[in-house]
């Protein structure tokens, strides 16, 4: 899960799972596995799609499907969220279980991590109880080898009774055996290994199975169904009945068999939790037995623990986090400076050329104005101000993700989040919010507790997304650092940006605590988080993925919104009512409110019109000032500065602008996403009002205090 087209685009709306077969002979393959075993990498390698991958658990929060043709026919691969077991408890695990049980895939490929095969085999054994058409894909063989672990694939395949193939998902070639093996299990099914649960439970299972005879169970195997009925999970029972299309417990014979079995089990001490433990332990023991058979481990690798001693150490963890963040910002500030200037220079040249052409063509003044002064100028500003910082920040961020540092951030910050009665995984969604708040909100699905998930969703907009970064950088540089290219000024800019981000993080904690004390009261629930091994990042892939999947996509979305906004502003500026342009009327009407907040009417108008995308706020403000007749040409940072100064910006305006940019209504995409995720108008409204209220309050306070003292 991350910032991809799928996560933030219109297509992100869940439409249920409609399988898109191209041909009726296409095989539907479910791609299952524990979290963080390279499932999405396998999916990408086979389908050529750019499903987001990163080295942290829980990225796939919704099912994705892709197509692979191996020459013999088509495979429709469905990437489902990673789960440790199919006895689901979180929303994403339920998605995985429901697809394997009720989605009727032709076969299931279970991707396993060779380095901790035993735990992965748990899931394999559970899937085998549902369908015999399984291929086990032991992935990350190279990494396991580095850690001194060898897996005997032949012995494992023999013991499991299903094909086992070894893969290194980053090397596409190693995956070529997978489609063939999948086709083979669909054509000819062997009887796979079946976990035995001891005499008492086996007798009970047999009795319930007898009661099923003659019933339509569709694809559900009686043995699996009997176990689940004996466990009596009401939610799963409802799903099963919806799938089978009949009320199973309406049959007196079945109810009687279940009652008799439960009595017998209770007599043997196997009721409730004890029964579940018994089942899980039997599966675990079988997995351990298989592990002893097929896995040879030499000395365990201690490199990760050494690194973690620094990265999560008592004294070093927080300083390192800040240093890393500062470094990322510094690289962004320094790197973005020059391309920004080149771009604005180029856009000005092209603008002048277009001006000449349009005049030569004899274009009507109206069209000339709206195209060039309206649409073109705002687009140019969006691209030249936004593109460079994004193109630098996104790859850096993806790099941290790929290496595996993000789960460590969640680990380090769990304590403070726990104090706020929230979940440490909120740190992960917060980090995703740096990329895009809408993606961050979707990412909140990795949090199990509904209350904690809501906390994370409602407070996600407090961290500035990538649409707000460049704006913050420009305003910070202009008013608090001064335009310069020296090392000192760029470092200062990075540190100030860091301070602003930390303010956003503090606001996140504050708002979370506030919500947890008022509308979302409750004790913090449990927290378990896997800390995956550090992996060598794939630099080439990071660059390609972050530029094409993220940067260009987000920029495209901003540009799509910027063009109509430019046209609207031009129309407003050039439609006069009562001797004054509409733009002056509107910004004049907003002016008192703006002044109260330490801003002005034009800035407020910029935020209002920037609702569809935060990227366009500053360009709109500049346009509006320019349309007011003050300055005709937009340029690099220095020119932006002179436009702002000429229109009465002071350091106070800049501070309030930064505060308001940090805390105001989330962009429209985020608001829609919040509504989709919470399915509640009430929470959506709160998600809009909470940051707005805090922003208005803090701006008003700052403006008031400043007026008192200066």
């Amino acid at each position, binding site marked *: 899960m991350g910032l991809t087209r799928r996560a933030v685009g219109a297509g992100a709306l869940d439409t249920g799972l409609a399988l898109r077969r191209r041909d009726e002979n296409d095989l539907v393959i479910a791609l299952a596995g524990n979290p963080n075993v390279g499932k999405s990498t396998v999916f990408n390698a086979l389908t050529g799609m750019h499903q987001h991958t990163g080295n942290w658990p829980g990225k796939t929060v919704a099912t994705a499907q892709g197509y692979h043709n191996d020459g013999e026919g088509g495979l429709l691969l469905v990437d489902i969220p990673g789960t440790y077991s199919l006895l689901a408890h979180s929303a994403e695990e339920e998605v995985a279980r429901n697809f394997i049980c009720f989605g009727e895939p032709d076969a299931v490929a279970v991707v396993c991590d060779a380095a901790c095969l035993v735990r992965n085999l748990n899931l394999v054994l559970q899937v085998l109880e549902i369908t015999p058409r399984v291929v086990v894909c032991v992935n990350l063989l190279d990494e396991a080898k580095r850690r001194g672990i060898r897996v005997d694939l032949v012995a494992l395949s023999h013991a499991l009774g299903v094909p086992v193939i070894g893969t290194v998902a980053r090397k596409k070639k190693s995956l070529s055996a997978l489609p063939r093996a999948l086709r083979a299990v669909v054509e000819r099914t062997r009887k796979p290994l079946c976990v035995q649960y001891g005499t008492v439970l086996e007798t009970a299972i047999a009795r319930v199975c007898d009661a099923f005879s003659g019933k339509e169970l569709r694809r559900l195997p009686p043995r699996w169904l009997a176990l689940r009925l004996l466990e009596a999970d009401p939610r799963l029972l409802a799903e099963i009945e919806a799938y089978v299309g009949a009320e199973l417990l309406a049959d007196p014979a079945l109810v009687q068999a279940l009652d008799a079995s439960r009595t017998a089990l209770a007599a043997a001490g196997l009721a409730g*939790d004890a029964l579940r433990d018994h089942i899980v332990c039997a599966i675990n023991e079988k997995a351990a037995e298989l592990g002893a058979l097929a896995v040879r481990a030499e000395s365990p690798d201690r490199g990760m623990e050494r690194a973690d001693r620094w990265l999560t150490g008592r004294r070093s963890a927080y300083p390192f986090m800040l240093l890393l963040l500062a470094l990322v910002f510094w690289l962004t500030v320094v790197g973005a400076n020059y391309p920004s200037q080149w771009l604005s220079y180029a856009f000005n040249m092209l603008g002048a050329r277009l001006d000449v052409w349009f005049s030569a063509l004899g274009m009507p003044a109206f069209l000339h104005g709206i195209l060039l002064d309206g649409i073109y100028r705002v687009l140019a500003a969006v691209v030249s101000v936004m593109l460079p910082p994004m193109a630098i920040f996104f790859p850096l961020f993806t790099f941290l993700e790929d290496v595996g540092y993000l789960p460590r951030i969640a680990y380090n910050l769990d304590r403070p989040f726990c104090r706020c009665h929230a979940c440490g995984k909120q740190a992960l969604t917060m980090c995703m919010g740096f990329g895009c708040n809408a993606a961050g909100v979707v990412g909140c699905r990795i949090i199990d507790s509904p209350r904690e998930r809501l906390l994370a969703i409602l407070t996600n907009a407090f961290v500035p997304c990538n649409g707000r970064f460049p704006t913050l950088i420009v305003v910070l540089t202009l008013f608090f650092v001064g335009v310069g290219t020296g090392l000192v000024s760029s470092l200062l800019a990075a540190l100030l940006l860091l301070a602003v981000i930390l303010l956003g993080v503090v606001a996140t904690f504050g708002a979370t605590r506030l919500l947890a004390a008022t509308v979302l009261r409750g004790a913090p629930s449990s927290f378990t988080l896997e800390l995956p091994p550090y992996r060598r990042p794939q630099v080439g892939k990071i660059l390609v993925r972050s530029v094409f999947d993220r940067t260009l996509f987000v920029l495209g979305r901003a540009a799509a919104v910027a063009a109509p906004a430019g046209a609207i502003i031009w129309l407003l500026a050039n439609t006069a009512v009562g001797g004054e342009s509409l733009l002056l009327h509107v910004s004049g009407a907003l002016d008192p409110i703006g002044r109260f907040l330490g801003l002005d009417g034009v800035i407020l108008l910029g935020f209002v019109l920037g609702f569809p995308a935060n990227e366009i706020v500053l360009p709109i403000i500049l346009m509006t000032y320019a349309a007011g007749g003050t300055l005709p040409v937009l340029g690099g940072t220095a020119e932006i500065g002179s436009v702002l100064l000429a229109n009465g910006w002071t350091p106070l305006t800049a501070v309030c602008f930064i505060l308001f940019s940090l805390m105001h209504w989330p962009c429209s995409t985020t608001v829609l996403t919040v509504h989709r995720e919470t399915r509640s108008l009430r929470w959506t409204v709160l998600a809009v009002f909470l940051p707005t209220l805090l922003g208005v309050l803090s701006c008003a306070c700052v403006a008031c205090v400043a007026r008192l003292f200066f």
Partner: protein
Amino acid sequence: MNEIWNLSDIEIGEPCRVRGLSASGAMRRRLLDIGLVQGAEVVCVGRSPGGDPRAYRICGAVIAIRAQDARDVRVERGVRWV
């Protein structure tokens, strides 16, 4: 027979063996899922800067667990294994 403790009492670097869970419901299943079953070997490999949660190596994977949840895992100390 070694004494029975809670997983939250275990020192960093100390190996132990799971003897049972006192959690119930969803948390119990979550703990079983990550491999904390009867007889499983666990080492505490580190703690977060706040002291809580701590990281445990279970079944070859490192998993962070809060003290509040680790208190529900009963373990046997003084285990010797690689």
